[in-house]
């Protein structure tokens, strides 16, 4: 503790004349008091336990130290508007950095997961189609490459193409009562029929499965597609509505797109438009939906 701060002025020195001895005694008396910073933190119970106990005890015993820290508690603004804005900018900058970092982590996770899923799909394909598999019926020859069926849309119908069979991560990792993936085994006949453009059979088998696997998006989705090919747009809507409820990120855009097609074909223009607008403005691959929306608007414009 120094006797005179560096910025002591003449007025202060004169005022303190005759009090030096008392002030020296005060300084000596409080020489071993805890530093101010510790006292203030202790007053706020913001110290680690052992230190808090010691400082708390000192504060309880020393009226001087208590008075010192209590006097520093006031309600005056401690941040001027400029400092308040600067601190907010700092916090906002940190949040922006965290968002960028999170975005990279998501991208990086997808970069890692996507090959893993691809390997998983290949593994399942190998298990399902491996040459030495003992099955009651010979496996069908590789299905013909899916070609967009001759769905030449009439003037007021949106065209659509046949989506290949693909599986969500949930289906690939599905586990039932046994250790085998019974879901994939149950789906296989329906998917075989679907691949071979036998939509009647696919629809029948998937309808059976829809009650057993109500939360499996693939069941409802490919049932809806099959019904679209059977020109039954209204029941296709039911399938896609069920699919929308359980679709994950990898399926939801496709479900919305095909439901929009079904709605449009069923004459529900507003329902179709709402989904197309959502896809056109909010999905990662908006081209198909934007083009359809444009086509729909042009058709309506001619009417």
């Amino acid at each position, binding site marked *: *503790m120094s*006797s005179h*701060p*560096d*910025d002591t002025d003449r*007025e*202060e020195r004169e*005022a*303190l*004349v*005759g*009090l030096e*001895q*008392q*002030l020296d*005694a*005060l*300084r*000596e*008396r*409080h*020489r*071993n008091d*805890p*530093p*101010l*910073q*510790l006292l*203030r*933190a202790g*007053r*706020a*119970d*913001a*110290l*680690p336990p*052992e*230190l808090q106990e*010691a400082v708390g005890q*000192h504060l309880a015993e020393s*009226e*001087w130290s208590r*008075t*010192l*820290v*209590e*006097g*520093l*508690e*006031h309600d005056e*603004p*401690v*941040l001027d508007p400029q400092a*308040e804005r600067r*601190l*907010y900018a*700092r*916090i906002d900058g*940190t*949040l922006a950095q965290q968002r960028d970092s999170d975005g990279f982590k998501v991208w990086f996770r997808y970069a890692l997961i996507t090959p893993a899923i691809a390997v998983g799909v290949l593994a399942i394909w190998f298990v399902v189609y491996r040459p030495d598999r003992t099955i009651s019926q010979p496996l069908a020859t590789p299905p013909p490459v899916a070609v967009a069926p001759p769905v030449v849309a009439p003037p007021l119908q949106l065209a659509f193409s046949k989506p290949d069979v693909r599986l969500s991560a949930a289906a690939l990792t599905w586990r039932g009562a046994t250790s085998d993936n019974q879901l994939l085994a149950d789906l296989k006949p329906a998917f075989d029929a679907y691949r071979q453009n036998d939509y009647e059979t696919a629809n029948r088998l998937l309808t059976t499965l829809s009650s057993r696997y109500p939360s499996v998006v693939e069941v409802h989705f490919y049932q809806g597609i099959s019904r679209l090919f059977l020109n039954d747009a209204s029941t296709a809507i039911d399938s896609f509505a069920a699919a929308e409820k359980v679709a994950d990120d990898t399926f939801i855009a496709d479900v919305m797109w095909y439901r929009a097609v079904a709605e449009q074909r069923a004459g529900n223009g507003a329902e179709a438009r709402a989904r197309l607008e959502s896809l056109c403005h909010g999905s990662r691959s908006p081209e198909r939906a934007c083009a359809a929306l444009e086509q729909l608007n042009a058709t309506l414009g001619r009417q």
Partner: protein
Amino acid sequence: MATFEELYHQHVQAVFRFALSVAGRRELAEDLTSEAFLALHRNLESIDQAQLPGWLLTVVRNRARDWWRRQAVEQRYAERLVERRPNIAAPPIERWILESGDLKPIHRSCVMLRYVYGMTRAEIARQTGLSETQVKGHLQYALTLLRKAHGVEET
């Protein structure tokens, strides 16, 4: 439900004042305040906003404890605390500082920091969060009373 920015402007003065009291330095107080609001942002959806600013002050308090734990000086201070206090009788000026009815708490603290702990006005301003002008005003007021109380003639 208030937005994050609205909550910031609503509570930042109280949070910073508390942070300054536990940290004693503006830079550290800004760090603690910043960490508290970042924690609020992370928990904005789940937190009951009626718990503010108490929730924010708790974050500051916990962060301050962590900070003190990291300080190498901690053990040294703890050891010093158990030293015997010097056996020196309190001079009359101590009672006057503690008991004068004309002094407000902030006056007492400014006098202590200035004339016993030897701080400059700028250092007191940093500790209190006041401006140097405000500190100077408090000291002048207290000094005038001190001179009267101890029979020093006004010059």
